[in-house]
């Protein structure tokens, strides 16, 4: 029995990666849930909005790097992030003006808007690949680790190592800041309050003199900022590849629905639920159990519930279970 080593191994392979992944999902799911709450449709183009924002950040990072600008031990991409957000804001406002506004004026049904958003998704998808190509791009720089395995082992003398990547640390910090800002905005500012009113009851909000176009515009601006941040953090932590963002759509939607569509708090909780289930169900527990169990009970097999190939299947299953038994999600959002 060696609980300390078990804990370290568990943190290294499960807890830390899942927290980072969960934060990225939560930021993505927040964007989806805001659109659902205020514009009342499921935005399938969200994954590719993230890809577009991340692509802008990659390009601006390269520009900054070529000018010799760096951010010390932190990745240069963080400096590029505000500019990328501005670019993405311009893009989503343009799509809203050109595409979505037309259907809003028609009072189109949500299902039609969903199909429209799929069209937007394919166009954005093509745009990103056209500009930067379909390949992997590396854009992280600065220090790679807050603490590396070797340092940790030397520091503690434990058999197991623990690594915390700079990008994982940044992901969590940035996510916390974003969420805090978002809740402050929604709860304390006039615009935020009018957005919540519009989300709760559209007719009542209109009667009380809220300008709907203004609410819609602010929603898109916030969504663009969230999507870009999520995209850049994911790209920094893993790697930037346009197609991967399209695949992220499933866990992001699963997170938003599990938490309850339209509920920001639910989106965050959902993000972590999905991330932790994906990682723990596909993790091979042999190593941790070997430390945590008495010698006689040590497992000889891998103790892996599902092969890692089935990672996405986990979010599918959770999605189905939630839709069957609690369609409004954990935090009483709207049912789908």
């Amino acid at each position, binding site marked *: 029995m060696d609980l300390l080593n078990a804990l370290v191994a568990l943190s*290294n392979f499960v807890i830390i990666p899942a927290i980072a992944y969960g934060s990225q999902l939560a930021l993505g799911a927040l964007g989806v849930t805001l659109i659902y709450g205020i514009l009342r449709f499921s935005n399938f183009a969200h994954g590719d909005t993230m890809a577009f924002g991340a692509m802008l950040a990659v390009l601006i990072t390269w520009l900054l790097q070529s000018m010799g600008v760096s951010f010390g031990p932190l990745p240069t991409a963080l400096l590029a992030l505000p500019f990328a957000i501005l670019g993405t804001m311009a893009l989503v406002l343009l799509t809203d003006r050109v595409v979505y506004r037309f259907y809003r004026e028609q009072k189109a049904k949500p299902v039609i808007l969903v199909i429209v958003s799929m069209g937007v998704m394919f166009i954005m998808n093509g745009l990103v690949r056209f500009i930067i190509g379909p390949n992997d791009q590396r854009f992280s720089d600065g220090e790679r680790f807050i603490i590396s*395995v070797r340092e940790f082992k030397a520091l503690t003398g434990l058999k197991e190592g623990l*690594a915390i990547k700079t990008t994982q640390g940044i992901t969590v910090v940035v996510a916390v800041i974003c969420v805090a800002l978002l809740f402050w905005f929604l709860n304390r500012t006039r615009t935020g309050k009018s957005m919540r009113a519009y989300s709760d009851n559209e007719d009542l909000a209109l009667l009380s003199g809220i300008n709907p176009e203004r609410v819609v515009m602010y929603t898109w601006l916030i969504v663009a900022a969230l999507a870009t941040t999520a995209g850049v953090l994911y790209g920094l932590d893993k790697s930037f590849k346009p197609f991967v963002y399209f695949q992220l759509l499933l866990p992001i939607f699963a997170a938003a629905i599990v938490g309850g569509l339209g509920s920001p708090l639910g989106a965050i909780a959902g993000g972590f639920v999905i991330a932790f289930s994906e990682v723990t169900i*596909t993790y091979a527990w*042999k*190593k941790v159990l070997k430390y945590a169990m008495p010698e006689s009970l040590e497992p000889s097999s891998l103790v*892996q519930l599902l092969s*890692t190939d089935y990672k996405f299947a986990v979010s599918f299953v959770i999605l189905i279970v939630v839709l069957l038994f609690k369609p409004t999600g954990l935090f009483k959002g709207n049912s789908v």
Partner: protein
Amino acid sequence: MKKLLLASAAGALLAGAASAEEIKLGVILGFTGPIESLTPSMADGAELAMKEVSDSGKLLGGSTVASVRADSTCVDAAAASAAAERLITSEGVKGIMGADCSGVTGAILNNVAVANGVVMVSPSATSPGLSHANNEDNGLFFRTAPSDARQGVVMTEVLMEEGIKEVAVTYTNNDYGKGLADSFQAAFEAAGGSVTINAAHEDGKADYSAEVGALASAGGDRLVVAGYVDQGGSGIVRAAIDTGAFDTFHFPDGMISAKLQENFGDEIEGSTGQHPGTDSPGATKFSELVGDSFDATSPFTPESYDAAALILLAMQAAGSSDPAAYKEKIMDVANAPGEQIFPGELGKALDILAGGGDIDYVGATAVELIGSGESAGNYRQIVIDGGKIETAKYR
């Protein structure tokens, strides 16, 4: 008598026409896709052999050889088959130097080459599944790379000599990866080693920490990565180093390229690997022949030169560029008896064959075709020393 004369006159005319022909050879390699950093120099290698033969002016009474490139994509069987179909039906190629990855090579062979009766010589398809013991390929398929069944045995020898008895294996989820991982596991366990886990990974993912978590849990002294350096293989190695799961690795051929050194450098110090290669004089002669025009030591580049050379020499031996005729001659020109032929001596070989003599093509990779027409295999064992890929020895 009159008829016979006419026939022979017509035959002479035809032969005359044939002697002036421009022979097209297809070069089907994955110019895009998971091994795209290897293929440009492979194609250059093959085209070098074609140029050498054309410039000599001795092939089939002065025929020239032109190369037609096509993209196999390495992974998309449908795209590769379509590319091969185009080469054969609209370009009219007489033989194919390719394809590269085992999956697409099998697809082209079964769907296109056998149906059209065109010879394929692959420089790099190494799946044991492509050894056609019962002539399913109509004698049309050859390879200058050895089968992975052989590579599995060599890998076992390398690891055993290093004193490593327990390894984890991860392979890219396709014909190449699975074939190699399985043949390695069989050989390693037969030699008394143990494989703690033999798990697949998918290419093209952004994040491999889950896969590495499973590999780390299973444990082992070294991680064998039977993947691609431009794809998931590098992702696995990166995640394994970051989480401290493994710090030394063993790399089969798909992982060894300048990219590996560039990506990881001294982070994988002490790792080992092997890829087809030889220290026969042919390799040096090939490097001299190539000079600075491309990287002659890049994996499968010498094999590509040999693959193209074999096709052309077999044509000369058969006296025809018809695949049905020259396919019989490939084994003859590749193996003893006869005069040994090294890179840069293709002109001499064409002379000997034209005179009815016999050659033993050695080429850049000490070609010796066995079984149904695949290389017996020579391997270059490498070690990462000082952040660089260094040759340990040849075996």
